[in-house]
């Protein structure tokens, strides 16, 4: 596109990740989804008069994990602040957040572009805050909005990147990487469609070569990673068009409309909120000891890159396969579970990537929803490497396992699929095949040894493919060379 030769976009992302703590950030209510509206509430998260917040330690610990995992600095003294605005789903009329003294500063997210090139985006800050409730807007001609406060008070982690990304694709890959880290740390489920991960973007474009940033806009309301990419593409094009026609970009907040594939101005600079931040007097400063930081560091799980390297060394699999397998923590965990009961890493890697991932893709399931356990897959693979099952039969057994969740042993028994490795049984069939093909036997003995495969094929056919091909070949050779 011509525009990209003259202008370059500058993108910064502000991501809100819902922390998967047991309880809410300032009260004992369960942090959970899908419960009846307003069933997970108490005086604190409903903001009743006189109720006071008490900080959830687990939420702090989760945030600390994130700061450490991205190489940021944990501030030993951070503070909470009130962000004031009115909205029905915000029961206190302010959100408890962190403002001038966030929990974490700095750090970086590494991600790969489609062509494999690695990029690094620096982070500005990471802080914790409370989520608001959920407004359920009118349906079917109702003239009122309902509010569900179950989500209110769920801990959020806000991760603010520098304005360093230069394309929607980069933003997309940054988000993929960020989600991977959150999932590895086991602190956020990371499903953007479910609102567990939310992303606002700051966008500006500037003439190539210009150092200063131009006027930026904020784009909100993207509900998927691809949606972020599309919204950014839209907004960049819009800004470039404006600049090219000699107009100016106005500072504003825009809402992305996925249905219409367009972003609309929600409020201009003049209408922007004054949140009147001030220190939250109901909470004391958050003081984090060196000891606590150290203990959290010790407990950090192995991150994707380190894990992939270990997979290559420990299980002898190819580097590419290791990267695919460590793509999500649950997939990597699955692979390692298989390897706890099986010893050929490359075979396991191949099966997981082709058969298992193929099946999951087709059925639209997640690895966590896989109908059979890693140990069951390990058992199937062991039957292949031992020669009990041919690869072809094993795949059909796999299909049944995927369908029913049954053990391979059960399927094999029920379908009578065990490979025939009984020598005396196979010998009888071999002799039958040879005696029926006397002419070919003579030709073979005269030197046309290529005929062996046709003999094998006939034995396999006579056994419905269940004969152990290796053994059949041996027996045939022995008989033919007698």
């Amino acid at each position, binding site marked *: 596109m011509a525009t990209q030769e003259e202008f370059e976009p500058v993108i910064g992302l502000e991501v809100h990740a819902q922390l998967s703590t047991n309880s809410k950030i300032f009260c004992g209510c369960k942090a959970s989804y899908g419960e009846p509206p307003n069933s997970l509430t108490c005086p604190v998260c409903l903001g*009743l008069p006189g109720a006071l917040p008490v900080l959830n330690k687990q939420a702090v610990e989760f945030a600390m994990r994130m700061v450490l995992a991205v190489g940021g600095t944990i501030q030993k003294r951070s503070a909470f602040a009130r962000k004031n605005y009115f909205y029905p789903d915000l*029961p206190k*009329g302010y959100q408890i957040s962190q403002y001038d003294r966030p929990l974490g500063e700095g750090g970086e997210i590494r991600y790969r572009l489609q062509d494999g090139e690695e990029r690094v985006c620096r982070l500005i800050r990471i802080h914790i805050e409370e989520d608001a409730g959920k407004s359920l807007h009118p349906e079917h001609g109702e003239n009122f909005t309902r509010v569900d406060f179950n989500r209110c008070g769920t801990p959020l982690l806000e991760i603010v990147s520098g304005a360093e990304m230069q394309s929607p694709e980069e933003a997309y890959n940054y988000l993929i990487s960020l989600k991977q880290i959150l999932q590895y740390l086991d602190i956020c489920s990371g499903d953007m469609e479910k609102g567990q991960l939310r992303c606002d973007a700051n966008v500006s474009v500037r003439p190539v070569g210009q150092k200063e940033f131009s006027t930026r806009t904020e784009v909100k309301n993207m509900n998927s990673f691809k949606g972020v990419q599309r919204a950014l593409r839209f907004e960049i094009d819009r800004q470039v068009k404006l600049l090219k026609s000699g107009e100016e970009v106005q500072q504003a907040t825009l809402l992305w409309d996925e249905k219409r594939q367009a972003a609309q101005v929600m409020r201009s600079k003049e209408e922007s909120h004054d949140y*009147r931040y001030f220190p939250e*007097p*109901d*909470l004391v400063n958050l003081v984090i000891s060196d000891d606590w930081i150290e203990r959290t560091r010790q407990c950090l799980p192995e991150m994707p890159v380190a894990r992939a390297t270990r997979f290559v060394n420990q299980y002898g699999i190819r580097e590419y396969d290791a990267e695919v397998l460590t793509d999500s923590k649950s997939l990597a965990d699955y692979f390692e579970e298989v390897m706890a009961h099986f010893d050929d890493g490359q075979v396991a890697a191949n099966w997981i990537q082709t058969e298992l991932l193929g099946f999951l893709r087709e059925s639209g399931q997640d690895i966590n929803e896989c109908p059979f356990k890693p140990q069951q897959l390990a058992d199937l693979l062991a039957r292949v490497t031992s020669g009990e099952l041919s690869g072809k039969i094993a795949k059909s057994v796999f299909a049944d396992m995927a369908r029913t969740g049954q053990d391979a042993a059960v399927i094999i028994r029920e379908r009578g699929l065990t490979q025939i490795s009984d020598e005396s049984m196979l010998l009888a069939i071999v002799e039958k095949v040879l005696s029926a093909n006397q002419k070919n036997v003579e030709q073979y003995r005269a030197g046309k040894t290529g005929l062996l495969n046709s003999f094998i094929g006939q034995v396999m056919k006579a056994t419905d493919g269940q004969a152990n091909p290796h053994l059949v070949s041996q027996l045939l050779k022995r008989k033919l060379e007698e």
Partner: protein
Amino acid sequence: MDSYVPPYDATAVTRLIDAGAVIIGKTNMDEFAMGSSNETSYYGPVKNPFDHTLTPGGSSGGSAAAVAQKIVPIALGSETGGSVRQPAAFCGLFGLKPSYGSVSRYGLVAHASSTDQISPLASNVRDLALVYKTACGRDPNDSTSVAFDHPDYPGLLETNGKLRIGIQKECFAEGLDSEIDKVVRDAIKALEHDGHTCVDISLPSTEYAIACYYIITPAEASANLARFDGVRYGLRVGSDESLDDMYSKTRSVGFGREVKRRIMLGTYALSSGYYDAYYLKASKVRELIRREYEDAFSKVDLIVSPTTPTAAFRLGEKIDDPLAMYLSDIYTIPASLTGCPAISVPFSRMSDGRPVGVQFTASYFDELSLFQIAHILEHWI
């Protein structure tokens, strides 16, 4: 909020009930604890039991009147800048503003979270000490409550120890009623007679205490009162109009003049472009005052001053002059800003019979000295 029934009890109330106290009822007070005369109350003002044309003080005027009228032996009030000590002085009672963080604020409707303290009123020191001892202590539901090993106050009232008492000279200046001046000096003489040492001290930054207080507490209140928006409880007006209309109508109709004045003040002080000049500056002044008190308590055990510049004034006398009203808390505000405990002792009376309070301020968590000094003066009353 007239018909609002809270679904839970405040920690302080629960502790009193657990100790066998019987809660008779809730008392009248200034709206959202904002006022010094009880006249901003939604229900109309409480009258002073000594003279029904006088204010009982505020904001916790109802609590003070109930004790002074002997309806109850003890009562709790809500202190933000003198709301218990001033009514105690106006009604001839003992009133304690505890150290910030000693009585849990859980369940106390917040006015200014950084100075609010639930505070007891009683007609004698032993009752006061007993209520305080029962209500105080760390509460896991209030992050700002402090774990402190409280002594057995009611059992330790008698002491032979001699205290060093600082006379805060800034208080004995223009604005102080001459009769009150004399009452406080009589109290000082009584203490000297008992062998305690009284010395003049100066706390120059207290000059800015009122200005500082009327920036910080409205700022906090502007946020604390945002929840009264008509969405979940309380009054709702204009619900068939736009959301903004509902908010603005509900709050315009629902809040009284004084409350609206303070919400406006606080919102202004926190607004972008004014924050540094007001809220931030006030926070610095507050720190300065705190340090001055800390410094003073390295030299003296207690600081003595009048509780109020005048005795109980007439209902209606200051209601149209907010500044004059604010000045009635001039001596009580510093302890609220610093978090120090302070007590008002009903030492004597004006020639016309109106009660007068003498205030003692102690260092953080030294409530014991306050009870002891009050108990000494109790013998003289």
